[in-house]
């Protein structure tokens, strides 16, 4: 049995962005609950933040694909 430790690395790299995206949407939901009329503005900000935060996870995915290693067999 063999595999690439890069995917393990990707799993680790996804933890941070996962928490970050969670925090962003928690704040977004809070904000909308407090001020439903600010939904449009908050949505833009939330998705911008999500795009930036998720970028880290996606970079992790790229690196997982790039550094695949070779089959030892």
């Amino acid at each position, binding site marked *: 049995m063999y595999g690439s430790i890069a995917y393990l690395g990707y799993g680790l790299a996804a933890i941070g962005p996962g928490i970050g995206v969670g925090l962003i949407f928690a704040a977004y939901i809070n904000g909308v609950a407090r001020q439903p009329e600010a939904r449009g503005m908050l949505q833009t900000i939330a998705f911008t933040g999500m795009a930036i935060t998720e970028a880290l996870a996606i970079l992790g995915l*790229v690196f997982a*694909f*790039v550094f*695949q290693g070779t089959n030892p067999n």
Partner: protein
Amino acid sequence: MITASVVAAADGEPHGFPSGFPLLPQPAEMVIGLIAFGILYWLYKTKVVPRLEELYAERAAAIEGGMQQAEQAQAEAKAALEQYTAQLAEARAEANSIRESAREQGASIVAEMRAQAQAEASRITESAKRQVEAERQQAVVQLRQEVGSLSTTLASKIVGESLEDEVRQKGIVDRFLAELEAGEVTPQKVAPAGQDA
């Protein structure tokens, strides 16, 4: 095709196009993707979006027109209501005035009737009075004549002398009556003179 790729895998060669580097895009797919996007974009830009925007404008106009119509209807209804209210007020005022004038007319009729009746009554009274007066006058005149003739007859009988002479007779009777009226001759004096007093 399937067998081909399987054979390729079996040969230990890189499997499929993304062999060394899985994130390498396949050129054919990119070209087809670009063409596909171009076709769809062109169709949307020239056909779908303009048509839908036209519909949106039409719908907005329709809604606006509907609102205008509703406003117009509302204004019309308001005007009708105002007119109706005005008419009602007018009618009420008219009725009031009619009632007022009727009352006045009634009052005037009553007054007139009363005046007429009063006038009639007074006239009747007047004429009755006058008639009574006239009858009395007549009676007085007749009485005077009769008393005159009676007394002359009586006197002529008593005196035996004819008092037929008009002038004298009249003078005597008048004198007597004047005395009588003056109260110089009392009935007591006459009574013994008369046979049946």
